[in-house]
């Protein structure tokens, strides 16, 4: 039955499906790792228990999310070869080493120190434990650095030559790594991860506020999350705008699809707010548009000419409707985040940050907004890159493995079934962990209490008050 399908389309569906599941977890864990480092740092600096309580609370959630990120990430690293072997062979000399650097400088760092961070608080001193937490956070950021460099190179390839056989050969590694879209994409994604985490933290705190279970820890994290939104949402909107201008310069077809511009506009292009793009008819039906605003945004000139998709060959068009809509979802959510930040600022100013149910309901509703925005943003940039894997140079249709449709179809079904089970369970456990309000800690280990394993008590841990970390309740 699967033989009638196009194997390349199936491979694309599989990549899109597994990638979309995967990105949810890094988007959360990049921000959460940094948040944990901040919490532990504040605890060490101020000695206030509330930070340690929050650290332990989010640590457990981090462990579950990180685990799911790891297992879904390994799938991604092998899928380049299993499903995109022609791409791997041709682009391998460029993107392979960058991904190897990601493993060497990021994955090992995260994994090596994660164990110490999760399990080692009673075994190493405070300083070393904090160092481990910092290394985990650094690892997540390094990982973002390399993988976004790879992705950006596929979007805006630079610093390479192409051999007669069509293989990409690096010529200048710095030009490859710091290709034109990389700095923008890196900033945009890391800020997105921070916002995603802030929204989750704020949403969880709001939930406990609404349920009337908020203690000092919930209040503290709500306040921190709202500050984060106030500070980062405007930065993100600015970074997104800059990223868009960069895309206009290097991947104009993507921006045309984002804007829904099929026609060229020699004297000022309208901003299409909403409408139904029709790829075959090359027009946007029921378009609601503001004249000349697109030219103003993209060119800072009301009358600047902007080309439409009609200016480029039809076979190089990305699927317009998907890009058009995903872009609008991302942008609206970005402004909604800014809105939430501003409302919280007003509430804080009036001293009602922790008592205003309306604010808490909005914060709760916005809890998952970061994930949706991240997914929408990635759909925009990845679908907008089509029909190429390496933009302008290697077509997606020429990148796939020589696999028959039944093979890819079977694996796609297997991924859908397994991910549905595993990630449904994971989400359920995460929500259940979040449903418990963070508690003031239970009595810590008393000094002199035997730690049974021989020879594991390192010298700093014998200091008075050093090992007073709360003993975690056995989460049921």
């Amino acid at each position, binding site marked *: 039955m699967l033989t009638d399908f196009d194997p390349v389309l199936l491979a694309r569906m599989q990549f899109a499906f597994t990638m979309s599941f995967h990105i949810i977890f890094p988007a959360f864990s990049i921000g959460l790792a940094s948040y944990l480092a901040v919490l532990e740092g504040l605890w060490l600096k101020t000695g206030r228990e509330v930070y340690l309580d929050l650290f332990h609370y989010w*640590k*457990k959630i981090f462990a*579950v999310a990180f*685990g*799911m990120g*790891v*297992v879904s990430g*390994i799938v991604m*690293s*092998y899928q*380049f*070869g*299993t*499903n995109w*072997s*022609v791409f*791997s*062979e041709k682009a*391998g*000399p*460029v993107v*392979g*080493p960058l*991904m*190897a650097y*990601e*493993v060497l*400088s990021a*994955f*090992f760092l995260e*994994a*090596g120190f*994660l*164990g*110490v961070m999760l*399990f080692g*608080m009673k*075994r190493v001193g405070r300083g070393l434990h904090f160092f481990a937490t910092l290394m985990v956070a650094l690892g997540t950021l390094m990982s973002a650095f390399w993988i976004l460099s790879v992705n950006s190179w596929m979007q805006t390839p630079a610093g390479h030559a192409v051999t007669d056989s069509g*293989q990409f050969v*690096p010529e200048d590694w710095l030009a490859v790594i710091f290709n034109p879209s990389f700095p923008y994409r890196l900033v945009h994604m890391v800020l997105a991860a921070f916002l995603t985490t802030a929204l989750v933290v704020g949403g969880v705190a709001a939930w406990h506020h609404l349920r009337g279970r908020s203690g000092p820890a919930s209040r503290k994290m709500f306040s921190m999350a709202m500050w984060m939104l106030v500070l980062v949402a405007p930065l993100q909107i600015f970074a997104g705008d800059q990223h868009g201008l960069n895309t206009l310069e290097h991947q104009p077809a993507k921006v045309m699809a984002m804007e829904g511009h099929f026609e060229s506009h020699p004297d000022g292009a309208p901003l299409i707010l909403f409408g139904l793009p029709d790829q075959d008819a090359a027009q946007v039906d029921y378009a609601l548009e503001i004249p000349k605003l697109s030219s103003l945004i993209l060119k800072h000139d009301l009358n600047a000419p902007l080309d439409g998709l009609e200016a480029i060959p039809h076979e190089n068009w990305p699927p317009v409707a998907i890009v058009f809509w995903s872009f609008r979802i991302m942008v609206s959510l970005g402004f909604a985040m800014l809105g939430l930040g501003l409302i919280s600022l007003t509430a804080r100013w009036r001293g009602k940050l922790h008592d205003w149910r309306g604010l808490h309901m909005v914060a709760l509703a916005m809890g998952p907004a970061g994930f949706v925005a991240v997914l929408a943003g990635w759909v925009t940039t990845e679908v907008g890159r089509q029909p190429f894997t390496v933009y302008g140079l290697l077509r997606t249709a020429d990148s796939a*493995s*020589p*696999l*028959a449709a039944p093979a890819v179809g079977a*694996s796609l079904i*297997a*991924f859908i079934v397994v991910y549905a089970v*595993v990630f449904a369970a*994971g989400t359920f*456990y995460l929500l*259940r*962990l979040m449903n418990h309000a963070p508690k003031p800690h239970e009595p810590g280990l008393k000094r002199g209490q035997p730690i*049974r*394993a*021989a*020879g*594991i008590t390192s010298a700093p841990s014998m200091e008075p008050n050093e090992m007073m970390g709360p003993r*975690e309740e056995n*989460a*049921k």
Partner: protein
Amino acid sequence: MISSLDLGTILAFVVAFSIFVYVVMDGFDLGVALLFPFFPERHDRDVMMNSVAPVWDGNETWLVLGGGALFAAFPLAYAILMPALYAPIIAMLLGLVFRGVAFEFRWRTERGRFLWDIAFTGGSLVAAFAQGVALGAILQGVTVTNNAYGGGWWDWATPFSALTGLAVVIGYALLGATWIILKTEGTLRDHAYTLANRLTYTTLAAILLVSAVTPFLEASYWQNWFAWPRILLTAPVPLGVGVLAWLLLRRLAERRDAWPFPLTLALFGLCFVGLGVSIFPYIVPDTVTIAQAAAPRISQIFILVGVAILIPVILAYTAYAYWVFRGKMDPDEGYH
């Protein structure tokens, strides 16, 4: 001036090293999970899982490095082998998904705990078997047409790949049993001794069977092993396996906790050397050599710089992480 071929060979050793480190390190994690059915007691399982919980993630990262380094340094080999091993690789990845999440999920539920125990063991079993099948499929050779995989998506399924699949499962179980001996005390350890003893014999049988079949798979394998004077160099490998196995059985009988695990590691090391003897200098047996598959020189140098600087650092902090969790397990410890 180092020639391009030399760089390729060095990188082939880097890839082989990563895969070997993966095999033995995740081998004991997977092995511990494979032994869950023999330890029905909930508390025993808690201790077993906690003995690998702080390190499994780092261990699994070597798999990503093995694949990543192959991709980076030998894109042609990666592009041929991955589609050739499509089904086993996908099965392994899905198995690792279940195994990986079980580490966290198991502690998050009372009622569903047995389900995640099954996922832990089942996922590990699928992953271990699939890895063995992949090994067998590579050893028996893959169809290459025009520098790409040219076979079907069931080509890997042969009696030989089933044998290697089984052999890897048994070998990992032995690694797991000796790890438990190293890390635990009391009845848990005693039971692991019994299992390790039996598993040593089955592992030896598996090594023997695979070794007996392998030289007949490709003409070059036979040459690599038995051609004069090469045999002077290759003969110590099977002899070493014999000596190590004898030593391992002795130490198991003497119940010296610290010995069985490193001896099993050495046993794996020799088997790995044996595989290298068969395959070298090919990277896709009998069709693509290391030199043919090598990435351009500029890519090789870039990878080698990263490897030379970062692998020692990685080994250092990995050693530190193991040092932090050294010694016998505290049965009541865990962050959950």
